[in-house]
């Protein structure tokens, strides 16, 4: 999928990239919705649920099929990871971690689709902008990390009770002297807020940069149909570099999904610890 095949025929490279960075937006100002992000993330969430649901319906205790064996591997891998970090009852956290891992992985994996393909498909329905990677939208990642913040607060309250948690907010880490209440509290608020921000920015930054590098690589072969020596070299470069970056990106998308999942578990485990 080179830039030259693009339906609209962008005038230059900047226009091509800005076009690919534009969301399909409905509404104005504060109430503007990125329809592409919402659609893709909900679709992939449903795919995740359908995947596990279909296996759980047809699960057999006998010789499992390939699909069931694969899902069992994923479930066991997540369960072991959660068990290592989180020592209390994990009947809520382990399924959450599983959902986060698989969902984020699928959303990240949209980065591996040919760059111009989603736009082409959307173009068939008369839509001109379609960004296919929901995690390359800062709204998605912040929505997920703020949900994780709610989970962290839930575990804090559950483990320590409302009184105990408020007591800890004001007395840890420096001590119970009334003079130290305000510094303690401010430090705890910063610590609490830095978690969702770093989670969201890490995932967003990785996916956004990855997407942009794919776009820059796609520009290499942009002039291929002029059939000059330079354009042919560019096309070869695009194929080679695109393949290399896509293979490296398989590592990155898995790693980022894994990190998001592990950090959610680690933060929840930290929230249940008493000071």
């Amino acid at each position, binding site marked *: 999928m080179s830039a030259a095949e693009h339906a609209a025929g962008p005038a230059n490279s900047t226009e091509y990239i800005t076009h690919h960075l534009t969301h399909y937006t409905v509404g104005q100002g504060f109430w503007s919705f990125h329809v592409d992000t919402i659609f893709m993330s909900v679709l992939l969430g449903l795919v995740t649920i359908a995947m596990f649901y279909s296996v759980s319906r047809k699960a057999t205790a006998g010789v499992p099929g390939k699909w069931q064996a694969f899902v069992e591997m994923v479930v066991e891998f997540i369960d072991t990871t959660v068990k290592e970090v989180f020592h209390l009852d994990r009947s809520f956290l382990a399924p959450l971690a599983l959902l986060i891992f698989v969902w984020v992985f699928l959303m990240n994996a949209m980065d591996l689709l040919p760059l111009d393909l989603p736009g082409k498909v959307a173009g068939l329905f008369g839509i001109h902008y379609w960004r296919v990677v929901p995690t390359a939208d800062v709204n998605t990642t912040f929505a997920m990390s703020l949900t994780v913040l709610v989970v962290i607060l839930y575990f804090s309250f559950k483990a320590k009770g409302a009184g105990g948690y408020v007591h800890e907010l004001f007395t840890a880490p420096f001590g119970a002297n009334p003079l130290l209440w305000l510094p303690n509290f401010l430090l705890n608020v910063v610590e609490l807020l830095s978690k969702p921000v770093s989670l969201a920015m890490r995932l967003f930054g990785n996916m956004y940069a990855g997407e942009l590098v794919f776009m820059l690589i796609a520009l290499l072969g942009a002039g291929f149909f002029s059939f000059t020596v330079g354009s042919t070299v560019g096309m070869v470069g695009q194929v080679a570099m695109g393949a290399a970056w896509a293979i490296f990106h398989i590592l990155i998308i898995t790693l980022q999904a894994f990190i998001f999942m*592990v950090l959610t578990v680690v933060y929840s485990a930290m929230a249940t610890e008493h000071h």
Partner: protein
Amino acid sequence: MENLALIAQVQGYTAIALGLIIGLGAIGACIGIGIMGSKFLEAAARQPELIPTLQGRMFLLAGLIDAAFLIGVALAMFFAFANPLLARFG
């Protein structure tokens, strides 16, 4: 004409900033990953039976170290293609 000179100035400074963001970030991330990789190899040579445990953690940390750099790259790319400072000249 005066406007054009201002735009050129903003573009020039932005280009320098992009180089600094990506270059300094890359230096930091590379040193970090280098130190971690060397320690991992040392530990693996001493106690090969720990490799599976350590490998998972090494990849986790590699992702964490890489993240700050990649956020920098993403910001730099954003400034390269949709410079909000230039938009003021509209």
